[in-house]
């Protein structure tokens, strides 16, 4: 019993160190920004616009990807086809490759001098230096989080429930929308939030495709490069507050939904 308590103390100490490692820089960020600089940053039109653009682009990337990613996740969860593992590996590629490399890879596809870029231009899409490009880059690097979470959630829905629904006269599409999707929804929602979060914080891929208009991570980098740490810190602090508020709201909504479902 005593050795067990000692072990707990050692683990608590080690855990405390890692928590300190996460919290210290974030708290330091606030402490190093004066209230005046924070207020003037809130009133700075460029910062406000960039935060708005970041939130909008991350949301657009998440919603648009969801339409394609959720059906794929369902297939991956339910069917064991040839190449299944290969597809799972490909899906996780954007997470493991450096994000600047991801941006370069994307640029090769959408740049106006490539064949595919020309084709996209003819269809009316111009991703370079446009909000559409930001959405594309954010989606590319963050969609694996949604696919993985949704796949796991679909896999956790008992196949027997789907079979029961089929024998009760429902079409496969109806089974998907009335049984599989509602039962997997909690996990999918977590995946959507993770994707949104990852999209919002993206820098590497976006900076290659669309330096302008500036999303907040690029604005922070710009301020740091052009004016130094003191000018970058308040923007970073405000962006952190905004992301925290957004996530607290999303978590509250998700938890409320979970409580209602229980």
């Amino acid at each position, binding site marked *: 019993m005593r050795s067990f308590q000692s072990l707990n103390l050692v683990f608590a100490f080690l855990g405390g160190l890692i928590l300190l490692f996460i919290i210290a820089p974030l708290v330091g960020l606030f402490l190093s920004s004066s209230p005046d600089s924070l207020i003037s940053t809130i009133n700075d039109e460029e910062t406000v616009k960039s935060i708005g653009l970041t939130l909008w682009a991350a949301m657009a990337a998440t919603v648009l990807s969801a339409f394609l990613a959720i059906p794929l996740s369902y297939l991956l969860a339910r069917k064991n086809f040839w190449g299944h593992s290969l597809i799972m590996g490909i899906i996780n590629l954007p997470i493991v490759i450096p994000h600047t490399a991801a941006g370069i890879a994307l640029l090769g596809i959408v740049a106006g001098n490539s064949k595919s870029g020309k084709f996209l231009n003819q269809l009316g899409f111009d991703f370079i230096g446009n909000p559409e490009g930001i959405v594309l880059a954010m989606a590319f690097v963050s969609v694996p989080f949604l696919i993985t979470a949704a796949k796991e959630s679909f896999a956790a829905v008992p196949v027997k429930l789907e079979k029961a629904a*089929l*024998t009760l006269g429902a079409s496969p599409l109806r089974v998907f929308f009335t049984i599989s999707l509602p039962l997997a929804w909690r996990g999918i929602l977590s995946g959507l939030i993770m994707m949104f979060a990852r999209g919002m914080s993206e820098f590497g891929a976006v900076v290659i495709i669309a330096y302008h208009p500036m999303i907040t991570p690029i604005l922070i980098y710009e301020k740091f490069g052009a004016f130094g740490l003191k000018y970058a810190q308040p923007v970073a602090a405000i962006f952190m507050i905004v992301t925290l508020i957004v996530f607290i709201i999303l978590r509250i909504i998700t938890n409320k939904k979970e409580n209602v479902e229980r």
Partner: protein
Amino acid sequence: MLNVEKISKSLGKFQLKDIEIEVGKDDYFVLLGPSGAGKSLTLEIIAGLQKPDSGKIFLNGLDITRESIQKRKIGIVFQNHALFPHFNVYENIAYPLNTQKIKHDKKKNIIYKLAEQLEIVPLLKRNVNSLSAGEKQRVALARVLTLKPHLLLLDEPLASLDVMLKSDIRTLLRKLNKAGQTIIHVTHDYEDAVTLANKIAIINNGIIEHCGTPQDIFLKPKSSFIAKLTGIKNFFPATIIVDDTNNTAIATISNNIKIKLAPTEYKTGKGWIIVRSEDIVIANEYYEFSSNNQLKGKIIEILNTVPGLEIIIDNGCKWAALITHESALRLQLYEGKEVWFSFKSVAVSFIPE
């Protein structure tokens, strides 16, 4: 009604081979077999959830082998009920009706009528996760009955229920069957088969080993497997020697124990002998009974069972005798006591190898 003709299906290493089932209108058909025998797979093939590799299924004369699940008019109640956890009881029962264009009032009417029949009206607004196993079973039955299925398939419907609830649900199933519902019931429990079925098929390793009435199956089991499955305890490998001139048949089981049989239909050879527990009589002393088999042994265990006490006697082989509490009390039986036990030669069945 339902004719399953030579259905085969390979699923990984498991193979369902040439399954033949014939179920008539109003039949209560029980498919009895151990876990992994292919019972549930057979049901899923009949329901259309699995496609057979070969063979055909006819329902009311129509070939439904390739018919879609939704059009088969076959309802299935899965083991563990498969109720939708995000719907309440009412919504679960309404689910099949939502796929049809039925007016709200009519839908409500159908649901309440079924709920009354299955005695679940007070549960209609309840969350399905808060129901007992017996209540869940009733709800699952109500839900499938909204389809008015020609054929109702039940996958181990009594497996997760306690004794009291089992009896309730058995009564309910019997009632449904008497009201004209044709049922195929899959189980590993021979008691379900005895109490409910008018036809039984025994399935083992993907093969139907025996099909017939409960009398056929339980009184004349065709194989050692069936005898074991149907709860026969006194079941021993034996060598039988039939002497036609003296009109005797003697089986030798382990420990060189000789058992006399009625010789009529047997031939010399190897196989198994069966003696039902209820056919064994216990006595404290040797008596000159008419029974041809009188043996002595030591009581090694006394077990409580629903009909009485099961006395396990060891004489080199372990025999089970079923007696009432009253008899056990009168004979003052206890573990370790030496007793005589006897059974008639006609009570011994022989299954050739």
